[in-house]
């Protein structure tokens, strides 16, 4: 009894606490080093409120008359780039996701190769992808569509591969035992189990792509970003504010749409 009373309960072991402390210490050291060496000009910070006030003053009144003549077409282009790019990503991500699922493809080398493609797709930012494809295809929506497609492979492929790895092996065993060919096993064994996750990922990515396709035009890849870039370079701030407002509205509508569809199908 007395032994139980002297027993000290601890949530974490010593090494766990040490590891946590090491993470916090490491972050604190990195932060202080960064704060000391980063080049910030304090005068610019003091000046910021004046500059922001000036910015809003120039943005007002908004030039709504510009929407029908200059913005609407570009906005539709942006939405088409996002949708077509997401479809392109799916076409490319399905085979790569299948290659990456280690319960379907049993060659570690192929799994690893697929992971490499997925990681490279995700690590390069959408604007950098856009720059690359503008260099390849020239400015315009083609570069934007391919950019959105390549940028999304990593996200869609990774989550699709994970969904495939989590399927219940029962139906697959049954299909294999009855002598079904490989494609039927995939279509009737794996796909029905992974499909809800897949469509969820598709919708989620489309939502992200609407945001991204609104900015890739800044480097020339088509859509509303090109109109924004022109307005910024010409200092038409009252047009910039209309463009930003319309991007905001479209993004919010896309999010509401995706939430509504997800509630229906999942």
């Amino acid at each position, binding site marked *: 009894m007395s032994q139980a009373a002297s027993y000290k309960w601890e949530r974490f072991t010593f090494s*766990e606490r040490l*590891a*946590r402390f090491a*993470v916090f210490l490491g*972050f604190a050291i*990195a*932060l202080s*080093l*960064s*704060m000391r*060496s*980063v*080049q*910030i*000009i304090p005068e*610019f*910070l003091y*000046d*910021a409120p004046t*500059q*922001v006030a000036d*910015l809003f003053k120039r943005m007002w009144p908004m030039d709504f008359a510009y929407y029908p003549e200059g913005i609407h077409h570009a906005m*539709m*282009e942006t939405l*088409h*780039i996002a*949708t*077509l790019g997401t*479809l392109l990503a799916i076409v490319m991500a399905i085979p790569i996701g299948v290659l990456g699922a280690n319960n379907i493809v049993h060659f570690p080398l192929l799994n690893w190769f697929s992971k490499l493609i997925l*990681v*490279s797709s*995700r*690590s*390069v*930012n959408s*604007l*950098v992808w856009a*720059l690359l494809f503008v*260099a*390849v*295809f*020239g400015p*315009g*929506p*083609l570069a934007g*569509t391919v950019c959105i497609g390549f940028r999304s492979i990593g996200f869609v492929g990774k989550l699709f591969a994970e969904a495939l790895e989590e399927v219940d092996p029962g139906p697959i065993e049954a299909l294999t035992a009855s002598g079904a060919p490989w494609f039927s096993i995939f279509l*009737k064994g794996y796909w029905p189990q992974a499909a809800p996750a897949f469509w969820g990922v598709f919708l989620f990515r489309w939502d992200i792509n609407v*945001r*991204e396709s*609104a*900015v890739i035009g*800044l*480097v020339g890849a088509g859509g509303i970003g090109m109109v*924004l870039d022109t307005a910024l370079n010409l200092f038409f701030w009252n047009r910039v504010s209309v463009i*930003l407002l319309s*991007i*905001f509205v479209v*993004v*919010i509508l896309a*999010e509401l749409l995706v939430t509504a569809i997800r509630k229906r199908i999942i």
Partner: protein
Amino acid sequence: MTADTAKNFGPAFKTNWWARAGWLAGFLYAAYAANYLDVSWARFLQGLGNGAAFLAEMVPPNFSRWELLAANLIETVEIAIIASAFGILFSLPVGLLAARNLMPSWITWPFRAFIALCRSFHPVIFAILFVKAVGFGPLAGILTLIFASIGFIGKLFTEAIEEISLKPLEALRAAGAPFMSVIIYAVLPQVLNRFIGFSSYQLDANLRNSTMVGIVGAGGIGGTLFAAFQRFDYDFLAAILISIIALVMLSEFISTRIKRVFQ
């Protein structure tokens, strides 16, 4: 015998006409959108030719200006770390104030609107506005990524808080605990692990985005990258891209390690 079975039970798998119509609609849409965007096979093939020339110029990558490259990478990492620290710091109160099960609606709605505003614009748009507000340089990038972090962590943290069990809160309130004690002893223990998870993910995301904000002049390696593009300096560009991918992979490795520590 087999014909009999087929007659009694029909085909093993029923044709799903809705799914087929869906695929058809998808194809029709793709054709329409490709036409609208003036995307054609001929242009695509022509681009592939350009792409081959482009890739040929990128090989071998030119690391001769490694000092510039290293200085830029360090600045990129600095932007990500400072922005994450402040973003995490600010998103904790913002997330708490936006949770509908803790606060009255007149407090939550302005904070929810703020989070929605931070989330709806891509970081690049914030970067442009901050470059106008505080001038070129890393400060604009840091401010941009602070807002992006508040948008992401704030939203997920609010959702996590809204899912917590309210029983410990009730117990503490019944015992007469003041508001801050309720937050510290009943709310935070339930969500802190997830908060750390979101934060480490955001640190990763900030590093990726800090490689890009430089394209509009907000500091980090993006500025050098954009300059290399505009000067057709493609072998240096290849070196920059390789180092960005290596940096992101390294940070992904570190953040998986950190996640394991906090599990």
